[in-house]
């Protein structure tokens, strides 16, 4: 055995150990990352899953013409001013007779959501023949009642309700007059001060318009800039300067773009505050560097032989770019854009400064209507005093995460599908 071989033999075990340890570090890092993700998800899902359901209370309601003040249920005008609150109060008094004290009555009326009268109106509108009759109807419960019914038995004594109210709810529950249903209004309603009526509908529509504006501006501008810089621009100090600045912009904290938006778009151009158009413009500034950088990287992966081949066959520079480079680089560009858009979708900081942190009930009808976006809605709810908003906040986070996961998965799938290996 030569001396070298002996040396190698001796160190072999140590080197194997070293490699094992090195791999173990890597696995450990991934493990830590996954654990953090798991904790985050368990916490959010644990807190938020209950918000996807809400409780209804069944009451026997007599839609009395006199109490309602309606004689024709097909007349919308009359329905809008009808006293639905009155019939609900009457139904509650009948369900729990003997509540005469004014304070107690107030507590009793608080069991049903203030939005229940709108449910009732819609119900009557859909079926005018109900007028004058008595029906068992399911009404939306107040958020405190909902929360009480969702808390496990042994934690109930701590709830924020009077003893009398708890008794009433227990009675209703025992009689089978409470029901848990899927909370569809969570997806269709706008914001509300009443947690049981609040939803992410207007925030999703606001996010949608904002993203459309961002995509329509940042994708063409970003791709055009990338093509010019990569294919046409001469290599000189000026283009180096631009490159440094683009990389720099990608690292600038997003709140700076908000300040820029405030100074330029609002103060200089006089755009209205809180509209998706403005949000989209600001987020365009933010995502542009990301799109330019990824698009340039995508163009770089197109082998020079493709360009040279086309040039050799007599194509002009522009034909080379449009017919060969762009189609080949497009999957990479799309992936980059989707990742950039996902980033923009989750962004709150720049929007704080341009007035999108706003209470928006009505669902925006276009990019120039006041709107808010999903992450901002989360921020607003996280700051609301009502306990039910804790669950709503987590539920909204789950929806946002679902969107982000979808977009990122789409990016990966697109890359896998369309990518060409050389």
């Amino acid at each position, binding site marked *: 055995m030569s001396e070298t071989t002996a040396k190698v033999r001796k160190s072999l075990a140590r080197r194997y150990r070293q490699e094992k340890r090195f791999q173990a570090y890597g696995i450990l890092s991934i493990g830590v990352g996954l654990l953090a993700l798991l904790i985050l998800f368990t916490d959010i899902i644990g807190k938020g899953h209950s918000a996807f359901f809400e409780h209804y209370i069944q009451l026997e309601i007599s839609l009395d013409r006199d109490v309602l003040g309606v004689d024709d249920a097909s007349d919308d005008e009359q329905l809008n001013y009808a006293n639905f609150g009155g019939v609900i109060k009457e139904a509650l008094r009948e369900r729990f007779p003997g509540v005469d004290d004014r304070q107690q009555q107030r507590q009793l009326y608080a069991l049903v959501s203030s939005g229940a009268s709108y449910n009732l109106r819609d119900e009557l509108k859909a079926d005018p023949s109900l007028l004058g009759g008595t029906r068992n109807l399911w009404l939306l419960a107040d958020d405190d009642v909902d929360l009480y019914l969702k808390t496990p038995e042994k934690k109930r004594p701590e709830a*924020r309700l009077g003893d009398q109210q708890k008794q009433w709810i227990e009675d209703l529950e025992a009689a089978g007059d409470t029901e848990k249903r899927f909370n569809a209004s969570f997806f269709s309603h706008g914001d509300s001060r009443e947690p049981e009526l609040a939803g992410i509908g207007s925030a999703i529509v606001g996010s949608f318009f904002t993203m459309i504006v961002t995509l329509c501006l940042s994708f063409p501008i970003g791709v055009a800039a990338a093509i*010019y810089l990569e294919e046409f621009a001469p290599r000189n100090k000026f283009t180096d300067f631009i490159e440094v600045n683009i990389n720099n912009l990608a690292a600038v904290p997003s709140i700076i773009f908000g300040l820029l938006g405030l100074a330029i*778009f609002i103060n200089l*151009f*006089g755009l209205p*505050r809180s509209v998706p158009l403005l949000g989209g413009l600001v987020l365009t500034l933010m995502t542009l560097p990301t799109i330019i950088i990824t698009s340039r990287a995508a163009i770089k992966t197109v082998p020079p032989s493709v360009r040279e081949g086309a040039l050799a066959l007599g194509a002009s520079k522009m034909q080379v770019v449009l017919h060969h480079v762009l189609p080949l680089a497009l999957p990479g560009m799309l992936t980059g854009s989707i990742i950039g858009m996902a980033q923009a979708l989750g962004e709150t900081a720049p929007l704080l400064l341009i*007035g999108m942190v706003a*209470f928006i009930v009505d669902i925006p009808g276009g990019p*120039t209507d006041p709107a808010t976006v999903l992450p901002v809605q989360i921020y607003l709810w996280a700051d609301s005093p009502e306990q039910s908003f*804790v669950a709503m906040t987590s539920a909204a986070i789950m929806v946002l995460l679902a969107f982000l996961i979808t977009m990122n998965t789409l990016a990966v799938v697109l890359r896998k599908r369309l990518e060409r290996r050389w």
Partner: protein
Amino acid sequence: MKFQMKATLVGAAAAVALASAPATAIARDTISIVGSSTVYPFATTVAERFGRSGNPTPKIESTGSGGGLKLFCQGIGTENPDITNASRRMKASEFEMCQKNGVKEITEVVVGYDGIVIANSVEGEKVDLSKRDIFLALGKEVPDPKGGEKLVPNPYKTWNEVNSDLPNTKIEVLGPPPTSGTRDAFNELAIEGGCKTFDWIAAIKKEDKSKYKSICRSIREDGAYVEAGENDNLIVQKLGSNPQALGVFGYSFLDQNRGKVQAATIEGVEPQMETIASGDYPVSRSLFFYVKKAHVGVVPGIEGYIKEFTSERAWGPDGYLVDKGMIPLPDDMRAKMAKQAQSLKSMTGKEL
């Protein structure tokens, strides 16, 4: 090449300008409201009810009192807000700024009160604090415990060192950061309130106002006071996991989280709706909103919104704002305010 680059830039600028041009001309039919995050839950409740009765729902931004007044005073015109909420009164300097920018006629409306509570988890011991205790426990510099008129960096570590009647637990208070209006009010009413009880410190005010302010409005930074962010909900949640800590937040959060947290009595007074409204509870403040009169009639619905806010069913003792934790004004004051608000009485600037 350079020319091409320039063309791209010009093109981009033109695109932006084009996108912005039509938007400027849009007349607004929704009321725009900005201002305090403390008033936000109440204003949004009113806005929502107002919107349900067939009007476009007003848009409300939570910008903080100072930020709201700044936006409000920027000028007349639909790009500026119509109403701003504030958890403190407009300052004379802000009124001047408004005047300078052409916002001449402003109506001030006091809507109710908010109390600032000091609370701990229900699992902890209920405490009674005096303003002096609060100052001694949280002030940055406090009078030397050995006596004499000398200030030393706050030496207290436990509550019973501050006052032997208090429990022997570590001083740990979670509260809002300096950017918050709640913190301003807490500093002014609780810390300064306790600070003033030392006659020799109160005497400094006459000689050197800024020195007095720096003594009486500074909170210690050695970890006993933990800045827990603007989010009062977070403070409530943290108190649940740490029964020894106290938290500082608005009354509405106490109201919504009874069963989780209990309030400390201050000077023996329990923070309750009645005690805050009567002024017996020492750490309370008024809530306001300001209306730009020039916009009334231009932006539809402002009068209706004011009417809804100042109606008995909203801000009365049985109103829906009380359910949200606002403390109503006394009856006579409410009647006076409602009249003043609905007739849009302008401020003169002298009342500030």
